[in-house]
């Protein structure tokens, strides 16, 4: 039961997570896309866990303009799981062999902190 303006605001913040994905895709053209290679090679190398961690971490950090997307094979299967980060106006960055620990690091340092992790970077 909403009894004040604050109540409404609290509910808005609580429910926002459910719909934000649909809204961002709707009207934002400058969102960052985090792509995870999810072909058979990627999945075999553990990409599903990587994807899950990336998604949860991005959500926990409340990064509303970042979308985590599964994509097809990016080639270079030796280095799976591969994660590519595309931010409009910036060069595309690719990371290799991204396990769950590295995934957490990518969110914390690259997406939140804005610095590139040179040790895991690969050629695009």
């Amino acid at each position, binding site marked *: 039961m*909403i009894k004040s*303006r604050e109540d409404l605001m609290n509910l*808005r913040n609580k429910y*926002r997570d*459910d719909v934000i994905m*649909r809204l*961002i895709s709707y009207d934002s053209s400058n969102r960052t896309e985090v792509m995870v290679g999810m072909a058979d090679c990627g999945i075999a190398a553990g990409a599903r866990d990587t994807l899950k961690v990336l998604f949860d971490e991005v959500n926990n950090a409340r990064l509303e303009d970042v979308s985590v997307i*599964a*994509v*097809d094979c990016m080639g270079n299967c030796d280095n799976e799981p591969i994660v590519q980060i595309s931010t409009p106006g910036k060069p595309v960055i690719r990371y290799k062999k991204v396990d769950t620990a590295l995934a957490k690091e990518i969110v914390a340092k690259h997406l939140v902190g804005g610095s590139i992790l040179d040790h895991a970077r690969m050629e695009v």
Partner: protein
Amino acid sequence: MNPTRLQVLICGGTGCISSGCLDVETAFMESLEKHGLTDEVFVLKVGCLGFCEQGPIVKVYPDNTFYVRVEGKDVEEIVVEHLLKGKTVERLLFKDPETGERYFYYKDMPFYKSQHRVALKLCGIVDPEQISDYIGVDGYQALAQSLFDMTPKEVIDLIKASGLRGRGGAGFSTGSKWEFAYNVKGDKKYVVCNADEGDPGAFMDRSILEGDPHSVIEAMAICAYAIGADEGVVYIRAEYPLAVNRLRVAIEQAREYGLLGKNIFGTDFSFDIHMDLGAGAFVCGEETALLNSVEGLRGEPRIKPPFPAVVGLWQKPTIINNVETLANIPQILLKGADWFQSIGAPGNSGTKVFALAGKINNVGLVEVPMGITFHDIIYKIGGGIRGGKKFKAVQTGGPSGGMIPVKDINIEVTFENLLKAGSMMGSGGMIVMDEDDCMVNIAKFYLDFTVEESCGKCTPCRIGTTRMYEILDRITKGQGKEDDIKELKSLGETIKDTSLCGLGKSAPNPILSTIDWFLDEYEAHIKDKKCPAGACKDLVSYVIVPEKCIGCTICARVCPVNCIHTVDQTVGKNKKLHVIDQAECVKCGACLPKCPTKAIILE
């Protein structure tokens, strides 16, 4: 609910339900279960996404992929290839019928590219049966803003400044209407939402109520605060069971959350809404007829003035706004009058939703800025005429409107321009006609509708439209007389001048406008007893071209009245020539598509 990695949106508008989206939903549930993806993928049904021609539509977020004509059997492939492995199922992407190009994202599709969604913004984004979705996208913030930050007068001034005009037909300033009711002193006032969408081929209001009912509820509450009302009524067509149900759910949820009822947000503002079902009378879209119907009477119009804003429901001041008009209100409150003025054309701010249908490639619901040209709507968004046929005219305003012929295809769509062109905005049906449509026959179709729907209260409309119909019927049967056109015009003008309500005043429009632009077709029917489009059954005959007939007997076999006989003339490989006995032919057309050499033609 914990946020999931992927969301699958299934269009759950009436159009997509009719084309089988419920099977698709079930298939997703089963497949996700099978692949252990239920925690990662959230499936929900949303309101109309607009592209009805290509339904059922499925959208996948966050990558925003747009699948069309998805059937239950396609779902497994989407789940395995796309949801699990990230590989788009290309064969289900929209393919442009002209260029053959496939589109991954709806934003790139020509159908969506020129659209600007304001009233439909949340349709296809929120789950209409979950108030939490609406609250999550700033729902009811506009109501809070009105109650806490603004006086009723300030709300009215803002709506006036936005330039919003009624989307139900005539285009009267919404803010000014509210002001009339605000200025009347009284202890009891009403807010009525007109959801009696009766124009054949118009389904925008239904789609809004099906896809985003809370916007309408919130807007009614804002209006109630502005004019000082505490009771609202939604008058909705009984023929829209899905919209009725979604709205009922939405009203109940709003009550549960305390957004309808007593002391909303703990203030002294109280407001509640109930629904009244219409019972299938077109005239009830007229606001005073609607009020009579809500009062349980025959839906006959009242004499104006007094206007409903002064003397309305149960004799109390009443604001009647149409669904689409209301759907614009919360966003105007949140984003401001200047924002709304920045969309559209001078004096015609904002957007208009049209139900694009008829002989067009992309049938569906489109929302465009006011001032866009018909050409852009038909060719850019609509994808042109079906089957490469020639465009003849576009009909707007339903039975109250008229035809926009080829020569006016570049006019900008505004309330005033449409009136000047002999039509009107109406509620937003836009029906495209091609060379096969006979304008006399279409005029007769609309008049048949009006004759049926005339409430009978005043003579010009009740008797006059019947007389006009009789004349048109004669013309389409080849019994037209020389002065029929003169007679139609004079009857039409008289009915327009002397009818009481909008239905009668506009009933002759489809005829007068077709006479204006397609006089040659009328004359061909009357003088030459010919229907140039080949649509009027009594004026066409099916004949077999002897040079093309190969005597295969297929036509004779499909003829239901056995009127195709052979004559003693050899054709093809020693076969007999066939002819159609015109005296017996019932003109059913069954033979025409069956002929392998296209020897049967319409004359």
